[in-house]
């Protein structure tokens, strides 16, 4: 039996496709956790990164914050929050958000800061207010890099949201954690395959979004 046989056995078993512990349910839960975590992280990281990038100051402080957040062990933080706060979605969201904020923060800062100065100066010379310069000039030009930061964060969250199962939550991690406890290798392999598939689908979504959202002019020069 190798990995492929296990995966085949897992996906071939009809019992894995229905009910509370079925693949569709777990898949939905996993997507929900991931979207929530990336959404919260983007709500924190994007505005801060964009504004500091626009002013071009505070890069050192941002880099230190990002390093500190990156150094926090995600799994340890999960267990710690679980022991402190008890069962709930909050102990799961805190480590996932802490994981997703650094790449979003750092890349959006770098993206806006490294926008070519001439178009920004032209916009300022035409009398655009600073907020419009940021949103209508810098943001579209910086978008490919910003999206790559979001993509890194999303992939890490999708693959790490598996640990939510360790504190009794759902998601695809259930198969991995339960399979490990039950010595049920099929389950582990099946769960891992599903997570990898979802991560690849995330890549695909970001590719499609960048096709639609990034202005053709910016894409050509990048």
């Amino acid at each position, binding site marked *: 039996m190798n990995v492929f046989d296990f995966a085949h056995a897992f996906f071939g078993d009809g019992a894995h496709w229905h009910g509370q512990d079925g693949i569709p349910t777990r898949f939905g839960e996993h997507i929900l956790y991931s979207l929530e975590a990336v959404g919260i992280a983007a709500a924190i990281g994007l505005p801060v990164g964009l504004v500091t990038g626009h002013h071009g100051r505070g890069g050192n402080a941002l*880099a230190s914050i990002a*390093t500190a957040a990156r150094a926090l062990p995600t799994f340890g933080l999960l267990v710690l929050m679980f022991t402190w706060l008890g069962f709930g979605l909050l102990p799961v969201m805190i480590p996932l958000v802490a994981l997703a904020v650094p790449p979003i923060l750092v890349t959006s800062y770098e993206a806006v800061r490294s926008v070519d100065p001439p178009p920004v100066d032209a916009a300022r010379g035409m009398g655009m207010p600073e907020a419009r310069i940021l949103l209508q000039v810098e943001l579209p030009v910086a978008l490919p890099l910003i999206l790559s930061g979001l993509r890194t964060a999303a992939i890490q969250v999708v693959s790490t949201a598996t640990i939510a199962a360790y504190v009794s939550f759902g998601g695809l991690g259930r198969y991995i954690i339960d399979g490990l406890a039950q010595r049920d290798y099929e389950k582990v392999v099946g769960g891992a395959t599903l997570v990898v598939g979802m991560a690849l689908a995330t890549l695909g979504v970001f590719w499609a979004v960048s096709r639609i959202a990034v202005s053709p002019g910016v894409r050509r020069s990048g």
Partner: protein
Amino acid sequence: MNGFFDIPSDLQYGYFGLIGLHLREALLPVLAGLLVALPVAQLCVRFRWLYAPVFGVTTVLYAVPSLAFFVLLIDYTGMTETTVMIPLAVYSLVVLVPAIVDGVRSVPPETLAAATAMGLGPVRRYLQVQLPIAVPAIIAGLRVAAVSSISLVSIGMLIGNQGALGNLLNDAQIYHRPPLAVNSVLTTAVLGILVDAALVLVRALLTPWMPRKGVTR
């Protein structure tokens, strides 16, 4: 924080022993990743068409959750340190290859031409010109790889207590001693920050020609 440093005797080592184990489990894979990434990156620079497939494969590997990776390896390497270190080496490789490729590609062509004109062969040109100029980019990749590796070792707790400082998390739960979990998280975070600072220092030492200002970044 009573019993903060009072490590239960079911773990492999005392506090400092666990720190040593944690550093070994986290940093050996980064070193291995670097040793593999250097030639792979060089090949990608040489043969441009190679970069896209290599980048694709590494992106897929990076998407494999660490826990799943550990568990899949148990069949081959058992519940050992090796099982924790192999995935970490792969993740390091994934972070390092693009960093090194970007670094080596950023060497200006005039500089390369000058090196060739001075009679440097391809090997010496690589070792004495391209690699030193790429040092800042390589160190930037190493910082991300090392810090995330230190953070990921804790998950090894789930496969037969191979998580070094992460093992404290399990003990915190089974003995109802939350301070141990605090200890685990704080010590791991401090280790990550210290290793990051050490790499920044290494960069400053390896690139004496760089301006001193902004060394902290």
